[in-house]
């Protein structure tokens, strides 16, 4: 059994918050206090702004923060993935340099993994890092990079050896975004937003101390990042949207959110906005059409079954039981739900589904659903990749035979960029 009890943790955090919480403090100042007290990231180790708390007890801490209205550590965006990766693979110096400013929100991070030529096949990255003189020199292109335009640091996966199989020739770096060799350009999507970036490297530089993990071990490090990304895939839903209370710290948090959460503002629409369906069906009167009712009921069924499946997975996790199959299904389920939601929103809107922007239903929100849903079955691993994962890792079916892993990467057929 753990040294921690729910009651003990609750009492301790409550007492500390009552003694220290002050909404008129500065945001960074307060988060530094959290870091020092170990309440910033309670599940992290004690030496790194945490308390080594079991993840099952973290919600207790969150509840107490919410009860008193206290602002927590910075958690939005890629920063938590960066931290999780550095905690496992980083050097002491790297942890010292980056972790505190992650927690305080002073630094913003982005993930430089996907490339035009390597989407589903992330290990096929062909952005190159060559050691020249006393530093790594990076050339190539990354894509689908959220927040690169206001990031300080990037988690870079780059090829350092072209003469070994693809997974063996990658290394992992922390790259300073704000340097002349890095050009960040917005990538406009079909829904009109430009919440991703393309990042171009032309002799961008990375000092050797910014290498994370061993040379050629970049894929293993990236796997840590990706595992945390998958686990937290829907975490943007739980990110604090900021409080509307008065106080300096709330003002600062709202300002932070305005920047940090901007790229994610269409994500709920991408998921289909099931929450709006009954209200819309009632308002439009389409709830009275038996054929529409069938589709609405199907959607609610799929949605709730997916929610309950996720809860089963979390409940098993909280009880420390081995992960069942239900844990790997959420991403695929969310694609099915979102597609059915787009269908139902169209059905409910009728002719109004033709309209967008201010002319469209809900000031264009319905139209935004219709043109955003296609992303959900692609972003973060296509449905096809998810089915491969479920088949191979959960159902233990034979792996697809590979022709790209047994030879030097330079000999693997691939598209030249774009």
């Amino acid at each position: 059994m753990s040294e921690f009890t729910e009651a003990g943790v609750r009492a301790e955090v409550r007492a500390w918050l009552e003694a220290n919480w002050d909404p008129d403090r500065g945001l960074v100042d307060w988060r530094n206090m959290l870091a020092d007290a170990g309440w910033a990231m309670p599940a992290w180790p004690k030496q790194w702004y945490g308390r080594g708390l079991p993840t099952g007890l973290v919600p207790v801490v969150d509840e107490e923060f919410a009860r008193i209205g206290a602002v927590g550590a910075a958690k939005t965006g890629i920063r938590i993935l960066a931290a999780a990766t550095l905690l496992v693979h980083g050097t002491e110096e790297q942890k010292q340099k980056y972790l505190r400013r992650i927690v305080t929100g002073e630094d913003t991070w982005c993930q430089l993994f996907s490339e035009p030529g390597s989407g589903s096949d992330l290990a096929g990255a062909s952005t190159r890092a060559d050691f020249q003189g006393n530093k790594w020199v990076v050339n190539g292109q990354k894509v689908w990079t959220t927040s690169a335009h206001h990031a300080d640091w990037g988690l870079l996966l780059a090829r350092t050896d072209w003469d070994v199989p693809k997974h063996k020739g990658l290394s992992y770096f922390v790259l300073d975004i704000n340097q002349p060799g890095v050009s960040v350009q917005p990538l406009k999507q079909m829904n009109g937003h430009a919440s991703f970036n393309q990042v171009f490297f032309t002799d961008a530089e990375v000092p050797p101390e910014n290498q994370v993990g061993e040379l050629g071990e970049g894929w293993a490090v990236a796997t840590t990042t990706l595992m945390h990304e998958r686990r937290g895939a829907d975490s943007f839903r739980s990110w604090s949207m900021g409080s509307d209370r008065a106080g300096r710290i709330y003002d600062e948090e709202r300002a932070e959110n305005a920047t940090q959460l901007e790229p994610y503002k269409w994500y709920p629409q991408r998921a289909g906005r099931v929450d709006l369906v009954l209200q819309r069906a009632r308002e439009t009167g389409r709830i009275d059409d038996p054929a529409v009712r069938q589709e609405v009921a199907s959607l609610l069924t799929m949605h709730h079954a997916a929610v309950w499946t996720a809860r089963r997975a979390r409940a098993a996790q909280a009880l420390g039981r081995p992960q069942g199959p239900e844990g790997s299904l959420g991403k695929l389920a969310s694609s099915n739900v979102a597609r059915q939601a787009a269908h139902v929103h169209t059905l409910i809107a009728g002719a109004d589904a033709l309209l967008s922007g201010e002319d469209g239903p809900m000031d264009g929100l319905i139209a935004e659903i219709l043109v955003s849903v296609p992303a959900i079955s692609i972003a973060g691993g296509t449905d096809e990749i998810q089915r491969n994962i479920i088949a191979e890792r959960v159902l233990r079916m034979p792996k697809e035979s590979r022709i790209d892993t047994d030879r030097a990467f330079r000999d693997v057929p691939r598209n030249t960029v774009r």
Partner: protein
Amino acid sequence: MQFSFTEEQGEFRDVLRRFLADRSATAEVRRLMATDRGWEPDGWRKLNQEMGLTALAIPEDYGGQGFGVVEHAIVMEEAGRALLCAPYFATTALAVPAILTAGTEDQKRALLPAIAAGDTVATLAHVEDDGVWDGSTTTATATEKNGGWSLDGTKSFVVDGHTADLIVVLASAGTGLSLFTVAGDADGLTRRPLTGVDPTRKLARLELKGVAAEPLGTIGKAAVPLAETLDQAAILLANEMVGGAERLREDAQEYVAMRMQFGRAIASFQAIKHRCADMLLDVEMAKSAAYAAASAAADGDANVPALASLAKACAADTYMATAVTAIQLHGGIGFTWDNDTHLWFKRAKASEVMLGDPTYHRELMLQRWHEEDAA
């Protein structure tokens, strides 16, 4: 709602699964389904008493073990998995809830202990030839004469209706819908087995001509108990269905791993892998719905009627789709009589329709939906 089973529940399931794997192996299923009764009194009494299956969810006051809907649903799921040929669904998911919701205290004390002990097999006759599942078109009539009641009319689609010792019958008594109990061997009762798509669960048509009957609870007040009974039956059937679907899925999974074509296990083809992944998704979603509904029922949640319909529709669609996929993955062999897949396919088809098909339940679900209660 409860989103995980307790360790005790898990152990109970494991024991039961092993027990039924032994006692309801497919050879036994095939033997029993070929009989007119569809089950054997001696064998069922023995099996039932060893595991206390009918007693499980009957309150202790009435001779049962007092477990709740979640435990009951576990038995249903395992029975569905094993395709248990027994009057378990009719007795515990139809008759017992009817007696518990409609019966007087005296009636519960009179009827339930023998059911719990496995001595009485019971069922519910609430549907007629028109196949309307909610009793709203009931034409069977109850007449009072000399302080006693007698029933006239026809009931159909009665699960185990030709073999049950005790039949709870829905009839109209002038003042409204009423439930009655009738002895299986009562005078004036003619019971004809129906030929069903699913040979593993038998149905019967009953003709009642002046059959002596005892009112179950208050005359004219059966509507609410009947509705509650049908909700509970739908939830239990949904759990039975996901048990069957999971079994089909596992068997198909095993088959494709073994079956070689083109010099490789067909499980290595991406089309097969993706089909299996989708099947897993489907079955896990339906399990979640069935479990959630059972848990809500155990909690007495206000949203139980909606969740019952949701779970029934979801499980029915999934069971049927899984059965279709399972046959497909078996290829030609899956279409043969000697392969077991069709036994579950036929149960899936019958269960899709039993208590109302998915279209019916989706409509009901929406009528019953209280957004604020939906967890």
